């Protein structure tokens, strides 16, 4: 007789919305605007939302890091802009071809595909991938679409395991029947559909080792959970997948990371988005995500004191401090989304004790402890941090 569960699948809030025609029409619209301007003898330009910290704010209502409304205008007839103007159009045309031919390219491929010497000069259209990557980001912000929607894929990292059916193009399969390695999340998840979901929630796990442990202990099956391994900081694909699973499929998201500033930061990006990708928070972040561990309280509750490790860096009260992990913790204490009793308590304890606790430290109890006791107990009791 399974215990009643605190975590249940919810009603979906968004619908599968991927439509390549939207990207194409937007590209054509911008192209036409430029053409109209030049025909009318006006200096054509693009309005591009500015990047960087100065144009980023935390929106209390949606609880997301969002992009401000500062625009930078990129003119054709401006010595400082002309090159970037040309590059923008070049990438736009490339994206149009990609999307209409239903091909995907990596950032590096996009760079090489558009790099060539400008006739009559010694200048290349792109000298470096560092020139083409920002143009693609500019386009995301300008057009309000994801890079993935433009068929330019990000690095892939992370995998999932659990009883859900995935449709990826012509393939359809159950993510719990692909062996213990699970299904590797591709760089682009826009076109992925989920015909069948038989899990109650998704557990996002920081380390692959812990995810493998849970799979070996048959945790997904027993707890009716979907394991999402981020393998460190969550890639865009994984973050988008988490977002979609939550909003389109109503799956609650629970995050399980190491009990250290880096782990908490992983949680923070999944939940609130990052400054770099603030303009994509709407599509990548999942503010409703909850945090299961590791917490400082776990150390006491499960008697893990002897398996903690010292924080790196200099504490704030010592000379030269704060630095390293201490500094990071102090910064995280300032995050608007950590402004609650529970989180402030955890962060303060970490500072006070000067220790960190890894997920794998739970193996100190026994290998199956994490799957049999720690997670089921905390999750089913709703013992989660916001």
């Amino acid at each position: 007789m399974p215990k009643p569960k605190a975590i249940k699948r919810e009603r979906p809030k968004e619908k599968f919305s991927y439509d390549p025609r939207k990207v194409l029409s937007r590209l054509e619209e911008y192209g036409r605007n430029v053409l109209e301007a030049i025909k009318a003898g006006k200096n054509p330009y693009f309005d591009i939302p500015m990047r960087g910290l100065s144009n980023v704010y935390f929106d209390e209502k949606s609880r997301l890091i969002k992009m401000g409304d500062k625009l930078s205008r990129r003119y054709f007839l401006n010595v400082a802009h002309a090159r970037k103007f040309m590059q923008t159009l070049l990438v736009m045309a490339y994206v149009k071809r990609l999307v209409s031919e239903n091909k995907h390219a990596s950032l590096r491929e996009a760079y090489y595909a558009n790099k060539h010497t400008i006739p009559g000069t010694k200048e290349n259209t792109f000298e470096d991938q560092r020139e083409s990557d920002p143009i693609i980001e500019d386009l995301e912000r300008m057009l309000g679409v994801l890079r993935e929607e433009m068929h330019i894929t990000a690095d892939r990292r992370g995998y999932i395991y659990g009883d859900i059916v995935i449709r990826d193009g012509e393939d359809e399969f159950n993510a719990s029947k692909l062996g213990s390695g699970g299904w590797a999340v591709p760089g682009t998840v826009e076109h992925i559909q989920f015909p069948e979901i038989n899990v109650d929630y998704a557990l996002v796990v920081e380390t692959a080792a812990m995810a493998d442990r849970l799979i070996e202990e048959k945790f997904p099956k027993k707890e009716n959970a979907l394991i999402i391994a981020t393998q460190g900081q969550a890639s865009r694909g994984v973050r988008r997948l988490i977002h979609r699973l939550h909003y389109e499929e109503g799956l609650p998201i629970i995050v399980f990371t190491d009990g250290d500033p880096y782990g908490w930061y992983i949680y923070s990006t999944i939940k609130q988005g990052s400054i770099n990708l603030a303009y994509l928070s709407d599509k990548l972040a999942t503010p409703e995500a909850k945090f299961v561990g590791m917490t400082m309280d776990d150390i006491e509750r499960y008697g893990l004191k002897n398996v903690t490790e010292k924080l790196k860096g200099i504490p704030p009260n010592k000379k030269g401090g704060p630095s390293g992990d201490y500094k990071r913790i102090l910064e995280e204490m300032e995050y608007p989304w950590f402004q609650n009793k529970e989180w402030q308590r955890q962060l303060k304890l970490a500072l006070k004790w000067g220790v960190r606790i890894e997920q794998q430290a739970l193996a100190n109890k026994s290998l199956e402890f994490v799957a049999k006791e720690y997670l089921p107990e905390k999750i089913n009791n709703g013992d989660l941090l916001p």
Partner: protein
Amino acid sequence: MAEANQLFKEFKIQSVSEFFRRNAAMLGYTGKVRSLTTIVHEAVTNSLDACEEAGILPYVRVEIEELGTEHYKVILEDNGPGIPEKYITHVFGKMLAGTKAHRNIQSRGQQGIGISGAVMFAQVTSGKATRVITSTGGDIIEAWVKIDVDKNEGKIVKKEKHPNPKGWRGTRIELEVKNVRYIRSKQGVYWYLKLTAIANPHAHIELIEPDGKLIVFPRSSDEIPEPPVEMKPHPRGVLTDDVYRMARRTRRNTVRRFLIGEFSRISDKKVDELIEYIAALRLIKTEDDKNVQEQLYERLMNGDVKAVLRSFRGYTKVVKQVAKMMEKPPEKLTWHEAEEIVEAFKYMKFMAPPTHGLRPIGEENIEKGLTNILKPEFVTAVTRPPKVYSGGIPFQVEVGLAYGGEIGSGFDLLRYANRVPLLFDAGSCVTTQAARSIDWKRYKVDDLDRTPLVLMVNVVSVHVPYTGTGKQSIASVDEIHEEIRLAIMDAARRLKSYLGGKHRRLYQVKRRKTFEKYVPEIARALSVLTGEPEEEVRDYFLKFIEERLAQKEATVEEVAEEVSENA
């Protein structure tokens, strides 16, 4: 006594050749390269002066033939007025007997020894007589001239007359010289003639080098410069000797009339003033107390002559004595009195000397000369108004500035005194100092020694203050230094505004290219995005750039013109 006579006789025999040998440096005959240049200089100067006086556009041809090691034949031919037969020995034979030596007149000649020095040089190095072929339009006279060292005069060794059916007029001289060398250096004949051509755009100058190469510096102006006129000396510019000598020569019958008639800026009233000054100076010299004397000199300098006189008892007597001196015949003027007059001149105030006798090249002709010979992309010239140095010697400075074009990288300074190129002793010349004292960076010349820039400076004066005996560098007189600086700065400002415009145009071209080079890329991309034909899109963009930048360039040009007008 007999011994002394013997000694004196020998001395006399050797006098002229000895004089020449001893003063070779002063006369310009030192060094193998320089000696050759000096010979050419003397001959060319004679030709140009003669043409100028006769109102002929000069055609000068110099030919250097190599006869052996350091052994050359120098041939010089002009289309001048020619030399009348009886003057041939005078022109080519007499040393120190120039026509301008004792006149207060601007002249090319510097040494007062002229072509006879060249004849002498040929004679002492090769032993050969100088061949002169000349005609004033009648018969052609061919003469071999030598200098009689004993008598210090020319001697025609051989003479022939030839008919002149074509009416040729001019002079050709041939000198055979040894101990000289022809090199194309900045001290050589080639460079000398090139510089001469720049400063004399009305002259056509040709040079045939020893290897047979013909170099032509063509004429670029048909305007014959007016010959300079003699100016009466200014009281502040004369020495005791001048006054003494002039007093001997004058036809005036009193000292007063002599002073008024032979000097500029001296009136009847000025002579009255001069009397008081001389009297005052005589009285001051009687004062024993050095301090008082010093004070009196100072007051005199301030023009307080009446007060100085009144401070001595019985001063009217002295004044009367001096006044008496003014009424005696000038030839009775003693050396001491001449000395007193010159001393008093130093304390008196005079109007600046007349400058009508100065003959600058002129801005237009400098520009023509520089353009014609150097083929620069930019040229400008400045002729300053006449000024006076050391109180009474008029002088005038002009500069020309040529930039770019066929001028090689690096700064060149061409120095002239009365249109004559100065090739030696550049370091000690006021011209060099003034040019180097300019902050060239202010005029958009960032690295002077790598800029293709030629600066010519011509100092015009009746008495150019040379340093040393070589007469190849101008002394650092403050007034001249300042004038040269002002003239250079004026010309440099024009260069700056030219360079500014050039930078602007380069910038515009670069700017236009920045946009145009991207157009094909943009057109292709836009064509993909919109389906519009690539060619058409490209034309839209090119037309747009053309229109926009044409507008901008127009406004930039206007601004530039305003700036240069203000400058």
